[in-house]
C-alpha cells in the first residue's frame, strides 16, 4: 500500500508530521506493508494535510486529516474521502507546467523525477549551443517571476556575451512578499526542477557556479534543497561533468538572515558576499558586474524552474499560453481571508474577480470582500470595482498596481484600510536598507502622518500624498519607491477609512 503525506511546510503547519507518524504506527499494528511517500503539496492548502492513497482507480485523497482519521483512511472508510485527487475541480482546472510534478512525485527521488519528465530539458540543452538555448528561452516569452517582469532570455544573453573567466547563476529564493509561497512550494516539492533550471542557465551563459539565496524563514525548504543538491552531485547531475557532458556546473545553498530588502537583487548580491544588504546603484547591471563583480544571472526560483519545461516542450508550446505580453503560466498564490487558499497555476489572463470569487471561493469569513492586495507589501490594494482586471503585467500596471510575485491577499469588509496603509509605511521603515532619505526617513514620517489622519486631522491627507510622491521619485529601489502603491491605493479607493468623522458617524 502506497500512501502520500506531504512534507510541504503548509501541510506540516497543519499537522502532516503527526499524520505521517500515525500512518506508520497504524500500519505496524495491523501488520500491513505501507510505503510512505512524503510528497510536496498539491497546493490546495485548505485541504492540508491532504493524504493520498494509491488505488487501482488512481490516487484518492482525504482532506484535513488528523492522526485519529488514519485508521479510516487505511480502510477506505473515512468520511473525509475526496475521490481521485486530480479530479478535484481546483486541481483539474489548472495548467500545471512549472508545478507539474509538485505533489505528484517524491521530491528527493531523482528516479521519480526522471520518470515524470525531469531532465528532458537539460538533456536537450546539453546538445545545443549556449546561443540556441538563450534563443529558445527568449522566444518562450518568459519574464521574471520575481516581480519586475524583465525578459529572462535578454538577461541571459547579456551574461552570455559578457567577458569573464568566472560567471555565476544566482537564484533569488528570498520570497519575502506576504501572500507568496510558490518558491517555497517548488523547492520543497520539486527541488530537482530548480537545480535543472539553474544547470541549463549555467550551460547557456557559461557559468559553472550557482547559488540559491534562500531565506532563513524557510527551514524546511533549506533542508530539502540541501539534500537534493547532495543527491544531484552524487548522481552526476551537478559537478565537473553534468550528466556526463563534460560541461561543469555546481551550486550551493546560502541562507538569508531575515532582511526583506535582500530580495532586491543587488542587496542580495551584497549579502551573498558577506556585506550589509545595502542596495547598489545600477548601472553597473548585475548581469555584467554581479556577484564578486563578475557577470551574474539573478533570477527568481519560478523563472528558473520554468526553464526545464520550456526546453523540453519548446518555446512555442509555452508561449501559446497567456495574454498580451504576459506569456505562459503563472502560479497564483491565493491567501489571506479566503475560502480556498492555495497555489493555482494557470495561463495569464484570468480576471482578478474570477481568481478571488470563482477559484478562491470568496472570503473564509463568509463576509463580503473589501480589498485584495496583489503583489506583496509593495503592491496596490484593489477594490471590488476593479475585479475585471485580467491577470497580466501590463494590465495591472495600467490600473496603478503590479502583479509582483503573483500573491493575492484577500481582506473582508472588517479590514481597516488606514491601518493597512500605516502598516505599509511601518514595514518600509523597518526594512529600509537606509541608503536613501525618502525611504529611510519618509516612511517614518508616513507612519506619523497616517496617525495624524487617524486622529481626525484631514489636513494631513495632502501631506501624505506629497510624501508618497517624494518617496516615488527619490528612492533608489522599489522598497521606498513602491510603498506608495499600497498607501495611495488604500487612500484612493477607501477614503472613508481615512476620515475619522465619517467613520464615527457610520458606527
Amino acid at each position: 500500500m502506497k500512501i502520500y503525506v506531504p512534507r510541504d511546510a503548509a501541510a506540516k503547519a497543519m499537522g502532516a508530521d503527526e499524520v505521517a507518524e500515525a500512518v506508520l504506527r497504524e500500519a505496524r499494528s495491523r501488520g500491513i506493508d505501507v510505503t510512505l511517500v512524503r510528497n510536496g503539496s498539491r497546493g490546495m492548502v485548505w485541504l492540508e494535510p491532504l493524504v493520498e492513497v494509491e488505488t487501482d482507480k488512481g490516487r484518492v485523497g482525504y482532506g484535513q486529516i488528523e492522526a485519529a482519521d488514519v485508521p479510516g483512511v487505511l480502510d477506505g472508510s473515512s468520511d473525509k474521502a475526496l475521490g481521485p485527487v486530480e479530479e478535484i475541480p481546483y486541481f483539474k482546472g489548472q495548467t500545471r507546467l512549472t508545478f507539474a510534478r509538485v505533489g505528484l512525485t517524491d521530491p528527493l527521488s531523482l528516479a521519480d523525477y526522471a520518470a515524470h519528465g525531469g531532465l528532458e530539458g537539460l538533456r536537450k540543452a546539453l546538445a545545443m549551443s549556449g546561443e540556441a538555448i538563450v534563443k529558445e528561452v527568449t522566444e518562450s516569452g518568459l519574464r521574471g517571476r520575481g516581480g519586475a517582469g524583465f525578459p529572462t532570455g535578454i538577461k541571459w544573453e547579456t551574461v552570455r556575451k559578457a567577458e569573464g573567466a568566472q560567471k555565476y547563476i544566482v537564484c533569488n529564493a528570498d520570497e519575502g512578499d506576504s501572500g507568496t509561497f510558490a518558491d517555497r512550494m517548488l523547492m520543497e516539492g520539486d527541488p530537482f526542477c530548480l537545480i535543472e533550471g539553474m544547470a541549463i542557465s549555467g550551460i547557456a551563459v557559461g557559468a559553472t557556479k550557482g547559488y540559491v539565496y534562500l531565506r532563513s524563514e524557510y527551514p524546511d525548504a533549506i533542508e530539502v534543497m540541501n539534500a537534493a543538491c547532495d543527491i544531484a552531485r552524487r548522481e552526476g547531475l551537478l559537478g565537473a561533468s553534468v550528466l556526463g557532458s563534460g560541461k561543469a556546473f555546481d551550486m550551493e545553498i546560502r541562507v538569508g538572515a531575515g532582511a526583506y530588502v535582500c530580495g532586491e537583487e543587488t542587496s542580495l548580491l551584497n549579502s551573498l558576499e558577506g556585506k550589509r544588504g545595502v542596495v547598489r546603484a545600477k548601472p553597473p547591471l548585475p548581469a555584467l558586474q554581479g556577484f564578486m563583480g563578475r557577470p551574474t544571472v539573478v533570477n527568481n526560483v519560478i523563472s528558473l524552474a520554468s526553464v526545464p519545461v520550456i526546453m523540453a516542450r519548446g518555446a512555442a508550446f509555452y508561449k501559446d499560453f497567456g495574454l498580451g505580453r504576459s506569456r505562459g503560466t503563472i502560479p497564483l498564490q491565493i491567501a489571506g481571508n479566503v475560502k480556498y487558499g492555495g497555489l493555482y497555476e494557470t495561463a495569464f489572463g484570468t480576471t482578478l474577480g474570477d481568481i478571488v470569487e470563482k477559484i478562491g471561493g470568496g472570503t473564509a469569513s463568509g463576509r463580503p470582500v473589501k480589498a485584495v492586495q496583489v503583489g506583496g507589501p509593495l503592491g496596490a490594494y484593489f477594490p471590488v470595482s476593479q475585479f475585471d482586471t485580467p491577470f497580466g503585467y501590463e494590465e495591472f500596471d495600467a490600473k496603478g498596481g503590479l502583479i509582483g510575485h503573483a500573491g493575492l491577499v484577500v481582506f473582508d469588509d472588517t479590514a481597516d484600510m488606514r491601518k493597512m496603509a500605516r502598516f505599509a509605511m511601518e514595514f518600509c521603515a523597518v526594512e529600509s536598507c537606509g541608503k536613501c532619505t525618502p525611504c529611510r526617513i519618509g516612511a517614518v514620517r508616513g507612519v506619523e502622518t497616517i496617525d495624524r489622519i487617524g486622529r481626525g486631522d484631514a489636513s494631513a491627507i495632502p501631506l501624505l500624498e506629497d510624501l508618497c510622491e517624494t518617496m516615488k521619485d527619490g528612492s533608489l529601489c522599489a522598497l521606498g519607491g513602491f510603498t506608495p502603491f499600497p498607501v495611495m491605493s488604500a487612500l484612493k479607493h477607501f477614503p472613508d477609512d481615512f476620515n475619522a468623522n465619517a467613520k464615527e458617524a457610520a458606527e
Partner: protein
Amino acid sequence: MSGTTGAAASERILATISEHLGLEGPLLPILHAVQAEFGYVPQDAVAPIAKALNITRAEVHGVMSFYHDFRTEPAGAHVVKICRAEACQAAGADAAVAAAEKVFGTALHGTSADGKVTLEPVYCLGLCACGPSAMVDGKVVGHVDEKKLGKIAKEMRA
C-alpha cells in the same frame, strides 16, 4: 550548548570559522554557524571572525546589526516567531499576537520573566493560506489561536 566564554569556547569559535573559510562570501555562513553553536553570536567571536576574514571588527558588527536574525544576547529557552504580515493580518494576526503575548507572558521582542520564551514578530513564513502562522523553535504552525498557543505554552513550561 556549554559555556560561551573561556578556552573551550574560543576553540569552538575558531573551528566554526575555519570550516567556512573556503567559501566565497563566508561571513553570513560563519555568523549563522556561530549562532547555531551558541544560540547567539558572542562578543568574543567578533575579533576572531574579523581577523580570519581580514576585515575590521566594526565591519563584522555592521553586518550583524543589519540583519534581524543575528542575536548579540542569548534568547529564551524557546523562540516563538509570530507572523505580522498582511495575509496573516487578513486572517486575524492581531488577535493571534495578543493571544501569544498573553499565553507566553511577554510582549513582542521580549522574553518571559522565567526566561522560557522569547517572542518575536516575523514578516511572512510562506504559510499565508493557513494563517495566522507561527514558528516555534523552527517548527511551523498554522491557524494559530489562543487555544493552540496556550497548549504550546503549557508544553514548554511542563
